[in-house]
């Protein structure tokens, strides 16, 4: 087998300067909350590591996660790192098709047994295995076969991590998440609709550098990126504290950049790095663009109430049941008063 080049060699060939590469390593150390002393270790690990074999499986998804990763306006070092991994199988990006594509997947699995990473985007339908098939294989069959020899699995996007939109009520395909099915391999969830490109590459960098998976929260998300809420890091937070809120999307408050809480912002309950890592090469994030956070990196975000309903809105039924409760109250009150009157009459009589 031909010896694969190291990531360092590939980056050098692509014209990435030493300075640019170290800047990427410093940024990665910073976003992974690692001390500066770890920068040389990251650089060394990335430079000397052989291209990590990655198999990317796409199931019930919209390709948004791949778009997020590949549609940057200009090539970034993070993008090049992604180029530097050996993406051995990816429906959308690979040139091969049909049997050749499947052969590439099997070859990668055999050559890198126990070492390759499986990245999954999209949920897996269990309602009818025929709902989503690739090369005649059901999604669950392909997932189980591919994951068997993997080092770890990364669920990219909210569909893979939590079921996402396909899993939303009434979940017609019986969609489930990767972690619902993969229990014998470490699963890292990188949710978001789509996830932040830097978060995806930083998770891969962490794996390349340390050979381990990062610390995860209760939803299997890396703590370094999903450890604080959007609200905690939001630049509009001072307006929340001052009680200054945009009432509509075009009022004076919205123009002045006031807090979007009243417009349904789910920032207070959403854990993600959007407010710090931002999007489009650090340009902005949804709240900065004037739209409330939808909470897309949280489980069941699609079913978590209206996008434009404030978080503090209770989920009440229609008024009918409340009217029923009021009627029951009147009935109980009348009964209690009748009993009280009877007692009063008895005492008066006795007295």
């Amino acid at each position, binding site marked *: 087998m031909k010896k694969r080049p190291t990531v360092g060699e590939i980056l050098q060939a692509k014209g990435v300067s030493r300075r640019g590469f170290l800047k990427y390593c410093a940024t990665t150390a910073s976003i992974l909350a690692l001390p500066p002393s770890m920068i040389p270790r990251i650089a060394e690990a990335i430079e000397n590591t052989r291209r990590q074999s990655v198999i990317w499986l796409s199931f019930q998804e919209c390709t948004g996660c791949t778009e997020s990763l590949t549609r940057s306006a200009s090539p970034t070092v993070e993008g090049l790192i992604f180029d530097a991994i050996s993406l051995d199988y990816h429906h959308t990006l690979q040139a091969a098709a049909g049997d050749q594509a499947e052969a590439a997947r099997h070859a990668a699995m055999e050559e890198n047994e126990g070492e390759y990473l499986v990245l999954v985007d999209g949920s897996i339908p269990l309602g009818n295995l025929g709902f989503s098939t690739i090369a005649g294989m059901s999604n669950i069959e392909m997932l189980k076969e591919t994951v068997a020899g993997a080092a770890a699995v990364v669920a990219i996007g909210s569909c893979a991590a939590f079921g996402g939109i396909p899993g939303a009520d009434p979940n017609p395909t019986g969609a489930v998440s990767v972690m619902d099915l993969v229990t014998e391999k470490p699963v890292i969830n990188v949710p978001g609709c789509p996830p932040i490109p830097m978060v995806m590459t930083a998770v891969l960098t962490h794996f390349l550098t340390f050979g381990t998976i990062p610390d995860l929260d209760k939803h299997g998300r890396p703590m370094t990126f999903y450890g604080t809420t959007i609200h905690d890091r939001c630049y509009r937070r001072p307006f929340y504290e001052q009680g200054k809120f945009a009432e509509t999307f075009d009022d004076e408050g919205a123009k002045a950049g006031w807090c979007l809480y009243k417009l349904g912002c789910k920032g207070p309950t959403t854990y993600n790095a959007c407010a710090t890592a931002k999007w489009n090469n650090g340009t902005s994030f949804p709240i900065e663009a004037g739209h409330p956070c939808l909470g897309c990196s949280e489980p069941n975000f699609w079913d978590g109430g209206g996008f434009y309903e404030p978080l503090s*809105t209770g989920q009440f039924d229609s008024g009918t049941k409340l009217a029923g409760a009021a009627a029951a109250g009147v009935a*109980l*009150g009348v009964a209690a*008063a009748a009993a009280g009157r009877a007692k009063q009459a008895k005492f008066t009589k006795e007295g």
Partner: protein
Amino acid sequence: MDLLEFAKGPALQVAAYILVAGSIWRFVGILLLKEKSDFSEPRQSAGIMAALKVIYTRSFTASAFKRATLYPKMMAYVLHIGLFAVVFLFVPHIMFFEGFLGFEWPGLPNSAIYVLGVAAVVSGIALLVRRLTSPVLKLISNFDDYFSWLMTMLPLVTGLMIPVRMGIRYETLLAIHILSVVALMIWLPFGKLGHTFLVFITRGTTGMVFERRGAKT
């Protein structure tokens, strides 16, 4: 369904049913009670004005009791004003009310709410200390007094914990806060917290009885 969804959904719904049914039950039950027979000659006519007068005068301390009751009365005012502001003037709460009332009103900045909330908790603790240290109050206090205090304080304390966080996740604290409100809503109609909706009725009734008997009100 996670804890927050449970708190915001079914728990809040059931609590709302109990609060509405329980409050109306007690309200109607008391209003329909037969007036106690009074065989004595009325000293003065006891009309609605007598009721209104006592509703007003009992809002202040009578000069004879000023020294004895000034401190608890002040604390009670701080507690009630703080509670009112925290419940009705905190913007996320206004959003909650707007969710089913359909209209909103202006709120206060969060910093003002935090100050009023802390003042309410401090005054609540001061009132509890007084209850526990005064022999007379201790003697006439029962489970209802202490439990009602706890039910009032829990939402205040859990609400004030949300911005502080203390290492606990926001949605967990929010869920605990809502569940403490749920507990308060369920208890409110049945204990002494019923004075929330009965205070002016009972005070007015007292005024009418006193007026009829010729007492100075």
